[in-house]
C-alpha cells in the first residue's frame, strides 16, 4: 500500500496572519480607550464650522478650555493650569519656536472674556500661530 507523503510547512516559516490580526485589534482597542479617556478628562462642546483645515501637525500644543459654572478650567495638553501660569508653561515647552502652533479647544458656550486671556497669554509667550479647533459641519447643516 502506498501512502501519500504528509506536507508539513517548512521549519522556520512563521505564519504572520494571527500576529497582524492581534496587533490590529490591540491598536483599535488602545485608540478607542485613549479617545474615551481623553474625552472624560476634558469634556468640551466644540463650536461648529463648515470650513477648516485638517492637517494635525505633531508640533502643535493643545490648550483645552472647559466651560465650568464658576470658572473656566484650563488644560495644557493633559496638565491642568491657571491662566497666570500659562505664558511660562508655553515658553517652557518651546512653543515660541518657528513652525510650532497652539491648538485652542474652547467650549462654545464660554463667553469671549474667558477666551481672550488665553489669546493674550499666547501672544505674551510668543506663539507664532493659533488654531481654533471646531467640530466639522456639513455645508448644508445650517
Amino acid at each position, binding site marked *: 500500500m502506498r501512502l501519500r507523503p504528509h506536507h508539513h510547512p517548512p521549519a522556520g516559516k512563521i505564519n504572520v*496572519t*494571527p500576529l*497582524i*490580526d492581534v496587533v*490590529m*485589534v490591540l*491598536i*483599535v482597542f488602545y*485608540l*478607542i480607550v485613549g*479617545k474615551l479617556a481623553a474625552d472624560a478628562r476634558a469634556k468640551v462642546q*466644540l*463650536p*461648529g*464650522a*463648515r*470650513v*477648516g*483645515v*485638517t492637517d*494635525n501637525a505633531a508640533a502643535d500644543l493643545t490648550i483645552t478650555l472647559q466651560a465650568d459654572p464658576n470658572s473656566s478650567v484650563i488644560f495644557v495638553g493633559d496638565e491642568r493650569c491657571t491662566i497666570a501660569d500659562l505664558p511660562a508653561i508655553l515658553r517652557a515647552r518651546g512653543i515660541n519656536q518657528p513652525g510650532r502652533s497652539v*491648538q485652542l479647544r*474652547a*467650549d*462654545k*458656550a*464660554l*463667553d*469671549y*472674556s*474667558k*477666551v*481672550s*486671556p488665553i*489669546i*493674550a497669554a*499666547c*501672544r505674551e509667550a510668543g*506663539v507664532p*500661530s*493659533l*488654531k*481654533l*479647533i*471646531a*467640530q*466639522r459641519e456639513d455645508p448644508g447643516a445650517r
Partner: protein
Amino acid sequence: MKHYFRNRSARAVHEQHAGPNMTPMVDVVMVILIFFMASAAILGPEWFLKSALPVVGGSAAASKTTRIKITVARGPDATPLITITAGDAPPKESSLSGLAAILAALPDKSNAIALVSPSADVPYDWVVRVHEACAQAGIARVGLAE
C-alpha cells in the same frame, strides 16, 4: 440501480479545493476595515481655523493691505450684531447669516487682513462663526483681538 457517480472520500473532496485559504485573508481585511472605521470616527469630525495673533504696531507690508475690522457684539434681542469696517469705507452692520455675503463682496480679499474684535460678553461660538465667514469669503489672514 447503477451508480453513475463515483463515491469520494473526505480526503478527495478536501484535495479538490485548490487555491489560497481565504479565511485568514477575510479575517485580516475585516480587522483593517474596523481599524479605518474607528480611526475615521475618532480623527474625522474635527478641524481647525487658523488665526493670527494681534501684534502691536504694523509692518510696511501690512500698511499696503486692506484692513477689515469686524466687531462682534450682543444685540438688543441677544442676537449677534456685527459691524464691518473695510479700510476707509463707512461701517456696515450685519447678522451672522449675512456676514459672508458682505465679506465676499469686498474687493481685493486675498490681500486683506481681518481683525475680529468681539465684546467680552459674546459666546465663543459666535467668534468662530465670524472666523468661518471670513474663511468662506476667501480672507486667509484673520486675527483675533484680545
